């Protein structure tokens, strides 16, 4: 049995005017760490809300832990943990009060499932009398995760858990997810950060409500159709203009210090490219072949 399953889910808002989720189907295996990768407004939150029984789909079926999201919504609500994208704990309650409250809401106690949250909670313990609203972004996320885990859910839904959190806390957060996975909890996580995609076992790349590709991050990278080069010069913005006006360059995207390009291999070689760029008056040129990142794959899928 799959842990999460969606079949042709469609969700529209404003009486069908805005299509948020467009015929989405995928499934998540038991104990899998599955990532939903896409920009803001791609439909990630809508999918999460349908799976957590907060929204009804227009059409299609979905099940979580073997229960239908429409018929058996009460059962699902007992078995899943949900952490919304926006920090959604009581800001005027302390860390401990929040945790206690959610433990009781799920008819359990902190002591009963302390093992599960121990690693995370020890970091929060020094602040346990502090009001949740006064915590740092990273701490808030840890507390929210603790509250979502307190009843030992079978499936954990984390909607953009690392948005607005500093780099160190983000790293820690993913470490925690790995530990949780070992406990046999199915984790469905969404993120707009492409670099986090490789930390998932399988990912779905989603854009404008449709899924473009589902696979392991490694396989998605392997499937990248072209050779990818990183190009650098003294004047990067001019370089970009030149590259984009070159008809033999298939794509050119700016990635930090480099522009990532793919080219029509039949007509253009690296040496030819170097020469033509030099003729344009660009200096300090550097061209190297690189392994694509998930972001490259995402861009490639988006443009095709």
């Amino acid at each position, binding site marked *: 049995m799959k842990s999460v399953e969606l079949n042709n889910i469609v969700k529209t808002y404003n009486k069908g005017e805005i299509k948020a989720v467009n015929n989405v189907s995928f499934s998540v295996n038991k104990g899998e760490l599955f990532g939903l990768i896409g920009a803001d407004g791609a439909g990630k939150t809508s999918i999460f809300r349908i799976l957590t*029984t907060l929204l009804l789909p227009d059409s299609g079926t979905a099940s979580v832990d073997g229960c239908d999201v429409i018929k058996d*919504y009460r059962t699902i609500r007992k078995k899943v943990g949900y952490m919304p994208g926006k920090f*959604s704990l*009581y800001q005027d309650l302390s860390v401990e009060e929040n945790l206690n409250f959610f433990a*009781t809401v799920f008819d359990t106690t902190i002591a009963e499932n302390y093992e599960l949250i121990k690693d995370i909670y020890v970091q929060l313990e020094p602040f346990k009398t502090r009001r949740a609203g006064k915590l740092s972004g990273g701490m808030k996320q840890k507390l929210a995760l603790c509250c*979502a885990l307190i009843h030992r859910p079978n499936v954990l839904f984390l909607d953009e858990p690392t948005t607005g959190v500093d780099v160190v806390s983000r790293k820690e957060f993913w470490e925690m997810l790995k530990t949780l996975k070992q406990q046999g909890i199915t984790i469905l996580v969404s993120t707009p950060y492409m670099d986090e995609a490789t930390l998932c076992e399988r990912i779905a790349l989603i854009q404008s409500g449709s899924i473009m590709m589902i696979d392991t991050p490694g396989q998605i990278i392997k499937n990248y159709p072209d050779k990818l080069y990183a190009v650098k010069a003294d004047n990067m913005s001019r370089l970009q203009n030149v590259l984009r006006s070159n008809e033999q360059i298939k794509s050119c995207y700016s990635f930090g210090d480099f522009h990532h390009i793919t080219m029509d291999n039949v007509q253009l070689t690296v040496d030819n490219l170097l020469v033509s760029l030099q003729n344009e008056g660009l200096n300090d040129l550097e061209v190297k072949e690189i392994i694509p990142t998930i972001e490259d794959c995402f861009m490639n899928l988006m443009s095709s």
Partner: protein
Amino acid sequence: MKQFITFVKKEFYHVFRDRKSLMMLFGMPIVQILLFGFALTNEIKNAKIVICDYSNDVTTQQIINKLEASKSFEVQRVVSDHFQIEKSFKSGDIKLVIVFPENFNRDLLHLNKAQVQIIADASDPNAANTLTGYATNVIRSYQQELSSNYSAPMQIIPEVRMLYNPQLKGATNFVPGVMALVLMLVCVLMTSVSIVREKERGTMEVLLVSPINPVLVIIAKAIPYLLLSVINLAVIILMSVTLLDMPVNGNIVLLFVESILFIITALALGLLISNSVESQQSAMLISMMGMLVPTMLFTGFMFPIENMPVALQLISNIIPAKWYYIIVKSIMIKGLGFASVWKETLILTVMAAVILVISFKKFKVRLE
């Protein structure tokens, strides 16, 4: 049950940690009682009057003394020239002139009848009305005193008694009104904001994805406000008894029970509002415009309902505060028992039940 207690505890934390709301919660009734009790009263104290006494005898002296002794009047001067009357009014601060004709005492003793003229500055008709009422009262009571001393009746005057409020005390009317107003405001406003706040902050999303029963959520929300409202009620009654000399003539337990019924009605209304709107602002707006204004207008303590057009009179029937106002007046002022307010009680009970059922039904188990 344990879930419920934790929930109620959580609500209390919210209430007590929100200092601003708490101040409003307890400050408002006190301010309103003080405002209505001392500032916005239609009772008139120390109105300046002038006596025009052509007779200047024992009787008129005694009446003047009585007028002076009353808290309502302050006799500015006694004149014996009717040209002074107009002058006094024009000076502006004289509200009333009392004219005793010549031979007042003699007429009274021999003809058993004497006339006294009361002239009021009716540019403020309400004040004029009230003051002439006060003055007639004083004169009439003097006349009664006089009659008991003589065997022959001095004069036949139609007896007009101001039932329940012989001194036309303002407090009798407004205390029940303020009670209705404060309870309505506190209960509706606070509860309506409290559920919407959970929606706005996103905590409702988390609560929904949990096994908790929605009915539990709603009831737990209302309990702290129920308790605080009862405390508020006690404060209002205590203040009106001690500061405004307003006794509770009826059964105080009955008064509290009826008040709790009204509080529950108001809480249900608040829950209904918060289940129907999406933001704290609209919840507040609806509570203020939709609840406060009708409560002020249609309860009857500011504007008599009997004077309204029939359509408005009909509308006033759906305002819970109107029925509560009638109940409180009956118990507090007239000292009546349950037998005379059962009809109003029944109406309130039905209202509370209907609103509660609707608000439970309106509670959304999903986000849309």
